[in-house]
């Protein structure tokens, strides 16, 4: 007679160890996927940061490439023969811009290295570069160790270093190898074949293969590093990219008319080299790698791996100093610490807890939380 029925209580899941939501008995849903929205909104409000460094000899088109990548005149590209004298020593200079697209704000910092490899004796020319990179790590570390920290520590660490290989067509030069060996341990490096319009397609392939062999022989791990692939999807994706590294790129900041279309390119007597044309050069691949798909990944690896290596190195090295009161250890970093690369470690990402890194295990392992 009572039209209202009472149903039995929601049945327990068949596996009592991990209760889950019961689709059959579930009425409505909790709505936790909205956490993603919340995250996204927060990220859009705070904006993103990205720091990129371009390294290579003068005249390889670094400034032009940066302008092409970000479709802005980040720098005035230096043209040959305009009387610009070559800097005597390697000087780094950075420029920061805030660009916005579709509501997403990006604070972009580009660091250039004019004068790299231009001298007669290029010994130790990588030291200012390493010094700069480590200085940024140091700055972040100091901020992190403060007693009252900022809510959002400004991130000036170099997330990606694009290395321009001159298109000799043979193989990597000793200078390239020396620098790459040191850089790869400190920062994410993406090598590119600069000014690829001086090589034909076949020559490019041969050059590329030789470079890949060189990299393998000298154990240089460029981005995307094989050891950081998280799962099968990543591995597949990244191995496709690794097959094509180094990308053969051409940069241009002028537009020309081709078949009625307006394209970015370089115009020569025998044709127009279109920058966005995949048949002509691999610039779109570079741009997509750096910006459209792997930007966050670059930042994560910098933060979780390279920065952590630096931090561990600094904390460990400081034990040489006498103990004393206070909180923060760090004695000022010696110049030697700043410029020498750290020993190669197979460090993995935070979630990959199956393997132990050498010498980094905690003295008191924590019991896992229930």
């Amino acid at each position, binding site marked *: 007679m009572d039209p209202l029925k*009472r149903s039995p209580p929601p049945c327990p899941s068949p596996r009592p160890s991990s209760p889950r939501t019961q689709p059959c008995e579930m009425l409505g849903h909790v709505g936790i996927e909205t956490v993603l929205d919340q995250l996204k909104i927060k990220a859009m409000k705070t904006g993103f940061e990205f720091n990129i460094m371009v390294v290579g000899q003068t005249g390889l088109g670094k400034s032009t490439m940066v302008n092409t990548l970000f479709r802005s005149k980040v720098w005035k590209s230096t043209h040959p023969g305009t009387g610009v004298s070559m800097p005597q020593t390697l000087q780094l200079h950075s420029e920061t811009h805030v660009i916005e697209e579709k509501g*997403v704000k990006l604070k972009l910092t580009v660091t250039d290295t004019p004068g790299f490899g231009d001298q007669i004796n290029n010994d130790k020319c990588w030291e200012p570069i390493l010094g700069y990179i480590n200085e940024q790590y140091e700055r972040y570390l100091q901020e992190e160790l403060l*007693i009252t920290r900022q809510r959002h520590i400004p991130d000036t660490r170099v997330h990606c270093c694009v290395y321009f290989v001159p298109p000799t067509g043979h193989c990597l030069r000793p200078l390239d190898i020396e620098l790459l060996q040191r850089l790869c341990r400190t920062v994410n490096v993406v090598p590119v074949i600069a000014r690829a319009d001086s090589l034909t397609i076949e020559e490019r392939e041969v050059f590329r293969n030789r470079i890949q062999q060189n990299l393998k022989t000298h154990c240089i791990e460029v981005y995307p590093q094989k050891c950081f692939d998280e799962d099968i999807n990543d591995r597949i994706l990244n191995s496709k990219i690794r097959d094509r590294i180094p990308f053969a790129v051409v940069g241009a900041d002028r537009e020309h008319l081709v078949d009625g279309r307006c394209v970015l390119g370089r115009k020569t007597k025998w044709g127009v080299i279109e920058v966005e044309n995949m048949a002509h050069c691999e610039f779109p691949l570079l741009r*997509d790698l750096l910006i459209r798909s792997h930007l966050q990944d670059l930042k*994560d690896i910098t933060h979780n791996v390279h920065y952590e290596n630096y931090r561990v190195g600094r904390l460990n090295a400081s034990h040489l100093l006498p103990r004393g009161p206070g909180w923060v250890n760090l004695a000022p970093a010696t110049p030697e610490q700043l410029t020498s690369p750290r020993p190669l470690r197979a460090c993995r*990402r935070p*979630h990959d807890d199956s393997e132990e890194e050498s010498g980094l295990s905690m003295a008191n392992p924590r019991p896992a939380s*229930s």
Partner: protein
Amino acid sequence: MDRSLGWQGNSVPEDRTEAGIKRFLEDTTDDGELNKFVKDFPGNESCHPPEAKTRVSRPQIPEPRAETPDLYDDDLEFRPPSWSQSSDSQQYFCAPAPLSPSARPRSPWGKLDPYDSSEDDKEYVGFATLPNQVHRKSVKKGFDFTLMVAGESGLGKSTLVNSLFLTDLYRDRKLLSAEERIMQTVEITKHAVDIEEKGVRLRLTIVDTPGFGDAVNNTECWKPVAEYIDQQFEQYFRDESGLNRKNIQDNRVHCCLYFISPFGHGLRPLDVEFMKALHQRVNIVPILAKADTLTPLEVDRKKRRIREEIERFGIKIYQFPDCDSDEDEDFKLQDQALKESIPFAVIGSNTVVEVRGRRVRGRLYPWGIVEVENPGHCDFVKLRTMLVRTHMQDLKDVTRETHYENYRAQCIQSMTRLVVKERNRKYDQKPGQSWQGGSQAQLWVRPSPSLVLLQALSSIQVGPGVLLALPIPLSPSPQQTDSREWYRLPHPCCPTRDRSRN
């Protein structure tokens, strides 16, 4: 789109043919999935980018999201039927194998790609996919949330938790008899459950406080709770300062639901003491429990009274962030309504009843049926929306940026004070002289957590990288003020700095 530096690019739509794509496909190395991929490529797919939202997400999600298939599907085959509801999980970034001169590298973001077409390649740099990149990583990692429920026995805490997260956490619970309760002390128990919805995983940890307020003499019964919270902070602090930061477990309590009994006249002394002890450590959300024993008028009166008392006693409960000024009126009203519903009058239920043909969670009485999810009956929906759908991230942020930072700062300061004292004591004492009894006693009278931490820290570090001079805190960076700045404890070294929301 406005940018600080920009091109004046003209873009002309490209003529992209299927034939062109197929021709170039033959040239490349055989890539099975790629072929299939391109065969299903219907030309220029029109993507519907979600408009960049600059507001706190609303309780009602404006656009229904398609079912996000499992991201970790090892099946690489491209599924044509689901093209219409494609999401970033299904499309792999196949660009590195170049197809045709004009084929735009296939975006991995699919429908969520904010760039509509290949013309955008000409005009845009392409970093508006950044939120999607972050999104993808978060989905892979999953989220975690720790919720504490506190209050006397019998106020419906377990039932409410079950109703909120649609789980059955307390199925095997045995209620203690009266005799057993006499001997019971306050414990802290943890239950963890993994919830997955639409591809998003949440690891929810519920911290319960059985025995709270149940004894005859309840003096300082909040102490175990406060100590637990501090312990979690301490553990996180230790991990964060250690050498190996790869697998830090974050057990910090993000939110505490405090249950107020509906039978009293507002807050009782125990409630006040508890909240005052904890408001600097955790986000407190007061709840008016078992609200089905009250009429709407009574609920209103009680809420007002509790709000007054909270203010009078200076209890700092969790404050909702203010709306942006560019939100619409409707949203602002909603936000206002939310703020005025504190404390939330909730009803929980483990049973399902049938009402007007629908099955709902509710409580069956002879005089009617109370529906848990009916906004007219109680504030359950508001609470759930606030806790899960709109403010979960904010709760975590406030815990991380305010409560934890306060704890850390205090911890470091007391550590340095102790160590300075210790050092001074050593320097003061000359050989042959007797101890400065007073200072030593002062130093060792109570092993505070910070001293323990100091010792723990020095024992943990592999090459004990210990401690030198106190750094001079940098001058506060100019940031906009948050209206919740009263959260910040005064810093002895430098004056209260505005912790802002960027």
